């Protein structure tokens, strides 16, 4: 335990050795004070939470942290203090005590690790029942669209890998199998906490299928993740819609044979207009246009919702910026590199990665952990102890 004190704060990039990070070291007084304040909050809530669901929610989230804090303290009491050790005259007895202390020190370390996990979970837990996941082809023309399709496939298999429900809202493909954009609604309360780290610009480097002279191209596609708070619902009333088609005059029916199937829908309350002409059947175009309208209204409502503003701002902090390049898929070298991971951010077997299974899941988990840690450090550093400093029991 003493040894770890010697490690510097700057080693936080060594992921697996998180415990050595200074603000997150258990010897750190501020962390101790923070934990104590959580413990007190917990007991205060247990008395006062009756009937209040948001307080209950907080209580249940504090529970594992306080639980492990108390286990930690119980363990600590088992360690024989230095002065007792020094006072012991019997050599054999002292050796026994030392040995015992070593065992407890090891147990304590494990307990600290567990407690930190709980704390991390507490630090950035956010509840969004669902989210909107967008894939957009970026710079690079047809090649970027082909890449966008590959990303789309990768993420939909990832959603399946994670067992999340999703539905496709809008989708536009190109004739050579590329994807212009796609909007998906992912329905899982866990999804946001994982997918938020995937937002940003993904870059691909390869010799495209569309390239004749064999040069390597760099293209991009971007991912946007918009959390959808529970209160955002879109209801479209039939009477609010003005549906326009090009064939509105004359006798209609069997009298004419006009084929134009394009549909335009205006949502009267908001003035939003959507069109669809990608199908030959007018009814299908109308269904598509309605879906688009729904997606647009949802987006509009999301953007105006305060909760989303905050969440999106949070998601854009640091290296989670939407416009920042976060990952490179290099086909020539068969590797994928995540630019946010300082060490070991590169892995090989790109095709395996693009299957959206365990390799992607592992990387996201790693990013997840790292980001949470940063957030917890930030939280503790910003945290001010209440006026009456908690007494160190």
């Amino acid at each position, binding site marked *: 335990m003493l040894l770890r004190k010697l490690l510097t704060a700057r080693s936080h990039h060594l992921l697996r050795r998180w415990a050595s990070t200074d603000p997150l070291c258990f010897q750190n007084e501020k962390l101790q004070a923070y934990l104590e304040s959580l413990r007190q909050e917990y007991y205060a809530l247990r008395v006062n939470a009756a009937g209040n669901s948001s307080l209950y929610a907080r209580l249940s989230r504090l529970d594992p942290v306080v639980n492990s804090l108390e286990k930690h303290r119980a363990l600590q009491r088992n360690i024989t203090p230095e002065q007792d050790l020094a006072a012991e005259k019997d050599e054999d007895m002292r050796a026994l005590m030392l040995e015992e202390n070593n065992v407890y020190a090891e147990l304590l370390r494990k307990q600290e690790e567990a407690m930190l996990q709980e704390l991390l979970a507490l630090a950035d837990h956010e509840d969004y029942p669902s989210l909107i996941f967008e894939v957009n082809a970026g710079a690079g023309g*047809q090649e970027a669209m082909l890449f966008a399709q590959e990303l789309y496939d990768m993420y939909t298999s990832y959603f399946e890998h994670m067992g999340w429900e999703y539905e496709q809202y809008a989708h536009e*493909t*190109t*004739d*050579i199998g590329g994807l212009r954009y796609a909007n998906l609604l992912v329905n899982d309360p866990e999804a946001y906490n994982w997918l938020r780290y995937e937002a940003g610009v993904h870059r691909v480097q390869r010799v495209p299928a569309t390239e004749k002279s064999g040069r390597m191209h760099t293209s991009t596609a971007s991912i946007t993740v918009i959390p959808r708070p529970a209160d955002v619902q879109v209801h479209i009333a039939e009477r609010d819609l003005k*549906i326009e*088609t*090009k*064939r*509105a005059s004359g*006798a*209609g*029916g*069997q*009298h*004419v*044979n*006009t*084929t*134009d*199937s*394009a549909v335009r829908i205006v949502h009267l309350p908001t003035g939003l207009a959507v069109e669809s*002409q*990608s*199908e*030959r*059947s*007018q*009814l*299908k175009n*109308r269904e598509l246009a309605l879906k688009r309208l729904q997606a647009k209204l949802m987006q509009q409502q999301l953007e105006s919702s305060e909760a989303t503003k905050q969440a999106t701002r949070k998601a854009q902090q640091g290296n989670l910026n939407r416009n920042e390049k976060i990952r490179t898929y290099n086909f020539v070298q068969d590797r994928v590199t995540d630019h946010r991971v300082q060490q070991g951010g590169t892995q090989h077997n790109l095709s395996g990665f693009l299957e959206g299974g365990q390799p992607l899941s592992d990387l996201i988990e790693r990013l997840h952990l790292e980001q949470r840690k940063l957030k917890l450090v930030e939280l503790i550093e910003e945290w001010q102890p209440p006026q009456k400093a908690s007494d160190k029991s």
Partner: protein
Amino acid sequence: MLKYLARPLLTATRSATRSLCSNLSGSSTKTTTTSPTSTTGGPLIEVNQAINGWADKLKAAGIQDTEFNIKCIVSHVLNRKFNTVPDDFTQLKFSSEQLANFERFLEARCARMPLQHIIGEWDFMDITLKTAPTVFIPRPETEEFVRLVIENYRQAKHVNMLEVGCGSGAMSLSVLHALPQVEATAIERSKVATVLAWENANLLGLQDRFKVHNHTMEEDNYMPTELQDKQYDLIISNPPYVKTEEFQFLHPEVVVYENLNALDGGSDGLRVARLVFDLACRHLRPGGKLWLELGNEHPPLVKTIMNLKYQGRLNFVGSYFDQYKRERFVQLEKV
């Protein structure tokens, strides 16, 4: 044949049309089989170049939605699904054979041959149907009609449905496609349409729940003998309802190329509908429904006819609007 293609408008007679059609459909199958090889060999022409000037030609021939027409024909010539062809045709190319087909099809379109006949298929709701020159082409309003019927029967347990005059099979087959609990029987007077509807049912894999009989409905001979004492839960029909006096105002696509038997509704447009009323009296179970798609002024007329002549047999349940806010659909109930 090219002589006919080069001709301007409307002069094409019906027989000429028929031979043109068979020629077109014959060459279109040839196109689809050869296109994979011809796109790699031979000179390629940018689609964007090939379409130059055609929009104006179509306009001059009196066709409104030129972009849509061109896109339909381009995707047909390239043997691509319509919704996968980009609106701006970037990077699409024709082989010289495809270009020749493209130009022939557009010439035919300028002669006002219906687009659905030129490309040999059409989308109706969620299904794609083959079309044939003498078989009535389903209209977009009929999609709305079928949508209403489907919504009304979505919760029903089992429905035994009859369609009177099924044409290409569009209505029955899209109901079957949407609702697995429906079984459909259809009668159709045209032999060509009967064969086409059966072919479409097989293409869509719906042949197990669909039967079609070639039969001409007449007074006191409403149903084929084998169905003489069958009763149904639901009868649907889009009978001919164009008044004879309105024929002079029809579009050339309709009057020159479509089967007038599928359109002619007599002096008030309800000649065939009346036969359907009588058929429904005999072949609907009590409480069973008859849904009809008719012309603009018909629903109030039908209501009057029900009250005057069918009291105690058929009740007028309600009328409904198509997507253009025209009151055109009626629901009747067997007492």
